[in-house]
């Protein structure tokens, strides 16, 4: 009798890349639904658009690069990138903006660097940075949350705005879009208002909700809940979100204690913008994150620190994309300096101290 041969282990494996990606996608569903509920149909329309574009671009690039298409197109990574990008974009982002961002993410940030597993930068965040730098005006087209006193668009109206660029006759841009809580805080602090005054402002105070902005706190809360579930299940590494949240919490708390009038409170920092999405779904992208245990703590914390710095002193209201890309750059360095001690070896005889240093690095 002849038998098949293979290297050990011989137990069928349980994990696979597709499974991981789809579990992460599934975990994003509740938060995404909350976004649709609070911020209208634009989110859904853009997700569908971006997913189609991402999958087409992925297939095209695989074909050009002569890679097998089926295993890669079904691995879910392109859809994940598309969703992460859209969730970071304003809800009324025009179709071409979403498309450019997605195409740049998939073609340049992912495939030109070697495809799945080889991209040094988070593709979704690269796409986001490209559009926010190139089209700053369109990147302010955020809709107000589902609150009384604000205009809400129907599905068809949203579709028309995203694809046609034309406003329904009854509306002006000012009526259907408005600054996010983060943006408002930034602008108004610049006008020498105190946090307290901003949050209780009669015109826009309502959007601040109870902690992080009306609607945003729900979105972030749901991402936090499902993210924790992923972390408990071991699908994402809990150290990255823990490091990120801890760093942001410590920094914002310190500064708010120092001067509560000019620095937003930690709760606001944690529950506004895309913090929970970033902490549990964007920063945890394993390909671009640090891989060692200690490295992941530092990586997460680094993102948290950069987010706080950019939010507080930078030119952009939310600095997640920049923070993530900056730490992506630092990931190899973090890995290098946080290597664990191998069993039976002492801390002093690291492989890299005497050897790798005189290599080309």
């Amino acid at each position, binding site marked *: 009798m002849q038998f098949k041969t293979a290297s050990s282990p011989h137990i069928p494996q349980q994990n696979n890349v597709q499974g991981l990606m789809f579990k992460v996608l599934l975990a994003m569903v509740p938060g995404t639904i909350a976004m649709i509920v609070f911020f209208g149909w634009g989110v859904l329309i853009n997700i569908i658009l971006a997913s189609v574009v991402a999958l087409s671009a992925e297939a095209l690039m695989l074909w050009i690069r002569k890679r097998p298409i089926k295993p890669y197109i079904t691995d879910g990574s392109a859809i994940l990138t598309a969703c992460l990008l859209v969730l970071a974009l304003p809800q009324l982002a025009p179709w071409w903006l979403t498309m450019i961002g997605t195409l740049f993410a998939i073609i340049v940030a992912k495939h030109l660097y070697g495809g799945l597993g080889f991209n040094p930068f988070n593709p979704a965040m690269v796409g986001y940075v490209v559009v926010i730098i190139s089209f700053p005006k369109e990147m302010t087209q955020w809709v107000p949350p589902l609150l009384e006193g604000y205009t809400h668009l129907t599905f068809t109206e949203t579709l028309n705005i995203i694809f046609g660029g034309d406003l329904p006759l009854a509306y002006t841009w000012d009526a259907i879009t408005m600054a996010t809580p983060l943006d408002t805080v930034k602008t108004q602090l610049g006008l020498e208002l105190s946090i307290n005054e901003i949050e209780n402002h009669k015109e826009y105070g309502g959007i601040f909700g109870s902690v992080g902005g009306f609607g945003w706190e729900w979105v972030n809360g749901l991402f936090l809940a499902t993210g924790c579930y992923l972390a408990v299940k071991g699908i994402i590494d809990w150290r990255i979100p823990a490091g990120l949240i801890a760093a942001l919490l410590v920094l914002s708390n310190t500064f708010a204690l120092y001067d509560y009038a000019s620095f937003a409170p930690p709760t606001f920092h944690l529950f506004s913008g895309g913090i929970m999405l970033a902490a549990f779904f964007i920063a945890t992208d394993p390909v671009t994150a640090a891989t060692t245990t200690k490295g992941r703590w530092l990586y997460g914390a680094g993102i948290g620190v950069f987010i706080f710095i950019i939010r507080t002193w930078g030119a952009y209201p939310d600095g997640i994309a920049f923070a993530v890309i900056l730490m992506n750059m630092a990931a190899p360095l973090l890995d290098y300096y946080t290597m664990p001690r191998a069993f*039976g070896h002492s801390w002093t005889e690291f492989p890299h101290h005497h050897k790798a240093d005189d290599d080309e690095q």
Partner: protein
Amino acid sequence: MTRSSHQLWRFHGGLKLESNKAISTQSPIVKARLPKRLVIPVQQHIGEAGALLVKKGDKVLKGQVITQSNEYVSAPVHASSSGTVIDIDEYPAPHPSGLNTLCVVIETDGEDKWVELQPTNYVKTKSPAELRQLIRKAGIVGLGGAAFPTAVKVNPGPQAHIETLIINGAECEPYISCDDMLMREYATELISGCGIIQYMVSATHCLIAVEDNKPEAVKAIQTVISEQALHTIEVVSIPTIYPTGGEKQLIKVLTQKEVPSDGFPSDIGLLVQNVGTAVAVHKAVVLGEPLISRIVTVTGEGVKQPQNMEVLIGTSMSELIEQSGGYHDDACKLIMGGPMMGFTLQTDHLPIIKGCNCLLVENKPEETPATMPCIRCGACASVCPAQLLPQQLFWMASSKNFEQVQDYHLFDCIECGCCAQVCPSQIPLVQYYRFAKTEIWSQERDRIKSDHARVRHDFKQARIELEKKERAEKLRKKKELLEKKKIAEAAAKNDTPETEVDPKKVAIEAAMKRVQDKKAAKQTNNTSSDE
């Protein structure tokens, strides 16, 4: 002593696997039938193979030694039953390569007649050195799978002081149950073997470590210990986490100590032996029987009656499968060893060797999943019991960066397979490490060989040079001699009284001639070296 009293530690990583041992522990150990033919490989252990002591046509008795080596790290091989040597030739080896190895083929005569055995009734009348000699002669090797000669292992050197003897009954790999059954049925022999080894290395106490999924084995040993009222032997139930049966992992669990990467357990006062080895030591010393059989688990979903069998070394695997009810129709993979570290065999017409603890037949028509690129998730590093960075090792091995891969401690990898098991990209990581290891060994052999060749080449160059010089010297001397003769003859002529010659003149002429000769000789020397 109670086992709860022992404090336990945890090693990094590891996996909780489905044990699947129960399918082969339902019936007691069965003695395999005496086969018609035994194929006994001469190399069954780590170290040098011995020289053959038998030739084709020889009659041998059961337990008769058939190879012997003077090397220190070596173990002799014995005839597993009585009969006639019908062939000594290369036969397929139970090895992942499927290559052939030198084997002695014995046709059994059915009498199973032993050679004269020399039992030892009172172990302590013998010195540790004498006992080591007995173990060496009995051809005992580590029966956990590594097959390292036991006589070498129990001799840690005069400096080493062995504090604790650890008997490894963890058997952490799924499916394998031969140690479990051995502990249940041979507990008395096991305790005796432990006592002998303990006496040999003068260890103050002995721990028998058994995973907590084998309560029957723990109970059996416990019973023997309390019956004999032994105070220095203790059975410890340890958590079932793969690969806790790895020597270094087991030491960490029991003592919290880490064996240095370049050292041995004896460096930290420990000695680890497998339970099967301890029983073999008992048999070798107390009964005088060499290692000619072992217990093999025949199991898996692809075989009809999974069971444990006591098998003579050299029995064909196909016979064991047949006696275990044969294959299920969908059997597709035959593995020697466990599912995590064992290797697949191409055929079952292979002999059982000393290091073969399990035959696993798998039936899952396991479609090979598409290997995806590494997504750097780090799952491999989190389960690695050697605390390595499997993903870095993978990159280096696949790019053949053999120097760096050693800097990242490739050779601390125990090939347990945890990393490959959890890899979401289905990368056959262990094969990459095995590739790198065998490649590095091969390069090392090449290096030694090329150094040797360089020495020989330099030697040959030097010799040719020397020969040339010698030849030239000879030539010169010959010519000189010839000239001298001529001069002498001439002088003899001149000596005749007709002409008177100034002797001074003659001397000058002769000297000038010599100079010319020398020049000529030098020239011939040069021309010859130009050739």
